[in-house]
C-alpha cells in the first residue's frame, strides 16, 4: 500500500491535505465507541474489605497467665503499636540546636578551615600559637623540641 501523502515529491501542503484525508479513511475503518465522554466521578467512597481498621481489632495471637511468654511480649508490642503512632504525632523531639544556628556554625567553621588552607606559613604558625595559648596559661615562648629520651634503667 502506498499512501499518496507519503510520496516525497509532493509539496508539504498537498501532503498535509492528503494526510488528513487518508487518516479519516483509516480511522473510519477502526472501530470505536461512539459514547459521550463520561467524566470520571470523584467518588467519596473508599472500599475497605477488611474488618481490622473498622473496629480496631486486636492481634490474633494471645496468651494468658504466662502460658507462652513470647506471645505475651508480642501482645504488648502489637497492641501498643496503634497507640505509639498517636504519641509520635503529638510531640516532636525538640532539637538542642535550632536549624539556623546549626547552619551558621557550620558555615563559620567551613570558612575558617578553608581560609587556613590559603594562609602563608608565618600566619599559620601564629594561628597555631594562638590556639595553644588558649589551652595553657603559662608557656615558654619557644616550643621545646621533642628530643630522644634515653630509657632509664
Amino acid at each position, binding site marked *: 500500500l502506498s499512501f499518496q501523502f507519503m510520496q516525497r515529491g509532493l509539496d508539504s501542503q498537498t501532503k498535509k491535505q492528503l494526510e488528513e484525508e487518508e487518516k479519516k479513511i483509516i480511522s473510519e475503518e477502526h472501530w470505536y465507541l461512539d459514547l459521550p465522554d463520561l467524566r470520571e466521578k470523584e467518588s467519596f467512597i473508599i472500599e475497605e*474489605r*477488611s474488618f*481490622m481498621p473498622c*473496629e480496631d*481489632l486486636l492481634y490474633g*495471637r*494471645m496468651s494468658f*497467665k504466662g*502460658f507462652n511468654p513470647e506471645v505475651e511480649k508480642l501482645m504488648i*508490642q502489637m497492641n501498643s503499636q496503634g497507640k505509639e503512632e498517636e504519641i509520635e504525632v503529638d510531640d516532636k523531639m525538640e532539637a538542642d540546636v535550632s536549624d539556623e544556628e546549626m547552619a551558621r556554625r557550620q558555615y563559620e567553621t567551613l570558612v575558617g578551615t578553608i581560609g587556613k588552607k590559603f594562609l602563608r606559613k608565618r600566619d599559620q604558625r601564629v594561628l597555631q600559637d594562638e590556639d595553644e595559648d588558649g589551652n595553657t596559661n603559662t608557656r615558654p615562648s619557644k616550643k621545646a623540641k621533642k628530643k630522644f629520651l634515653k630509657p632509664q634503667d
Partner: protein
Amino acid sequence: QYVPVRGDHVIGIVTAKAGDVFKLDVGGSELASLSYLAFEGATKRNRPNVQVGDLIYGRFLVANKDMEPEMVCIDGSGRSSGMGVIGQDGFLFKVSLGLIRKLLAPKCEIIQELSQLYPFELVLGMNGRIWVKAKTVQQTLIIVNILEACEHMTAEQRKQVLGKFSGN
C-alpha cells in the same frame, strides 16, 4: 463463608507441598499459596520445617477475586511477629466470623473473663478458626466449649458457667 482479604491474619492448614510452595486451606473458596521463602530467616538452603497437616498463622499478601490468594508469614519489615507454624498439641475449631470480630474487639469481656481462669494460649484467625492450648486436655476442652457456646449465651449465663469453673 470466609472471603480472603489482604492484610487479614488467618489460620491455614497445609494440604499439599508443591515444590517450593505450600497449599493452605483457609476456609475460602480457593486454596491459598504460601512460598517457603515467606518465613523469617528462610533461604533456599534454610527451609522452614513445614509438613502437610501443620497449622500456619499468616496474613494475606494478595487477595482479590481475580487471583489465587497468597499468604506470607512475615511482616513488612521481614520479621515474623508471631506468624509461622503453630506449635504442637492444642485444639482447632471453627466459629462464626461474627464471633471472631467480637472476640478481637479491644475490650472483650469473654476474653477477659476466660483469662482469669487458668493459663492458656489462643490464636484467633479472621477466617473463623480458633486454636486453643492449655496445660491439660480437660482445660483445653472447657475453653473450646465456652467459646463455641458464647455466641448464644447472654453475659449472665456466661458468668454463671465461668463461676463453676473458677473454683477448680
